[in-house]
């Protein structure tokens, strides 16, 4: 299991998720309303935006070219550590991962 901390404006969610699932899967399974994932995790809608906490950014890695394009269209401003949670696959090395959530996705 991989522990994840989602920090939202209204509070913090501590979630245990399976490795090999995506961060979006983990958020949806935990019922985190600040993540929408309208398209279901297919890199189409930019509604699963997260800000990776600085210490984790390097471990999570950069967005690829297709994700970069969609990150230009997120509702809340794109920052250096912005990622789409559907594109982050969880593994044991991300145990303790912390991400901050935009107030709204759409």
């Amino acid at each position, binding site marked *: 299991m991989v522990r994840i901390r989602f920090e939202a404006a209204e509070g913090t969610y501590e979630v245990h998720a399976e490795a090999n699932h995506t961060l979006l899967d983990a958020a*949806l399974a935990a*019922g985190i*309303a600040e993540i*929408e*994932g*309208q*398209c*279901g995790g*297919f890199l*189409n*809608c*930019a*509604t699963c935006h997260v800000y990776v906490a600085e210490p984790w950014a390097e471990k999570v890695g950069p967005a690829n070219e*297709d994700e970069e*394009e*969609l990150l*230009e*269209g*997120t*509702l809340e401003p794109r920052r250096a550590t912005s990622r789409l949670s559907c594109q982050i696959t969880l593994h044991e090395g991300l145990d303790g991962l912390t991400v901050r959530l935009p107030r709204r*996705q*759409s």
Partner: protein
Amino acid sequence: MQSSQHWFDLYDPRLKTDPYPIYKRLLEEEPFFTKVDGARAAVFSRYHHVEAIYGDAALFSSVKPPNAVKSVDYFSGHLNIAFSDPPVHTRLRRTLNPAFMPASVARLTPAVERAVDDILSAIEGRPRVELMAEIARPLAQRVMLGELLQVPAEDHDIFLDLASALFAPGGRMPGSPEAVHFDRCWSMAATYCRRMIEAEKDTPTDGVLSNIVRRGGPDGVLTDDEVLAQLITLLTGGFSTIASLIGTAFLQIASRPDQLALLRGDPALATNAVEEVARHRAPGLFNYRFPTREVEFAGLTLERNMPVYMLQGATSFDPDVFDDPFVFDIRRQPKRLLVFGHGIHHCIGAPVARLTTRTVLREAVNRFEAMELAEPLEAIRYTEAAQELSPVAVPLSLRKKG
């Protein structure tokens, strides 16, 4: 387990007028084989089955095999993003994405609010209006054609006529009056679009068309025929769905005084209300895919190229996903719906439909202290287009505040 063949009528009008008994029955019977237009087909209606089919574009193709599903072949074989698979789909989709991303849709909000203000102001002194003709369709046209695609109002009819010919029920046999009419409408719209494309090339803008014309992928920009296909799709595919969702939203809310009172008490519930409307009464009734090889799926052996129908409206009543699914409650915590599709073909215009519908619903509640259906819900008729849930007319009684 190999389910038996069932009799199931995909075109049953009750799927539009009163689908709930059918959806209840499907919970027990799905999945099964049936015949649609004389062809053996599989039917799925449970959430996780439909989610899996939508989610696997390699196994479930959107490209129609020759002669398949002719009754709903709206685009008569012309290139269309909805009926494409990767890599063609990927190439087409990336040119449309920028205009429909959350930030772009947010920028559209003031224009939608102005359109709602204009349209409601024009009718607000009247005790009775016909919502579809006087509010829903004009608003949807103005948002999609005028604001998003920048087509002057005097030219909208070209695309309204084509959309009407595209989505008309029944076949278009070569030489039939319907086919001749369709070809004429297509030709007029295509000529207009080619002029739009030339104008964009001559004088670049920063609008939707600019992305379609210029945005290239690894394999270059779109060809002129591809640009034309994209434009025609946007110009005909969007506004009827938006108008349908608006019509359905008013029908569902105005016919439930308790829900209308909740919305009146907290207009911010309009966002949730639109989700609940779409969950309860999906704007698209069904969709279909074609297996790319023989496959065992959910207990059925699906043959290659067999039509696989997904009743996406039924998925919102799956008790595995939704608590008390047959209860309509705008306070329900929204969950991801499949009614706008899922996966690579997730409806690109859904955010615009949601924005437009919640804006007009919220503003109507603000302006009118009374809003009732002027005819019984049972008297409402729906258009005959097979896949679409769209009321023909929604007579509303209104009383302005103050």
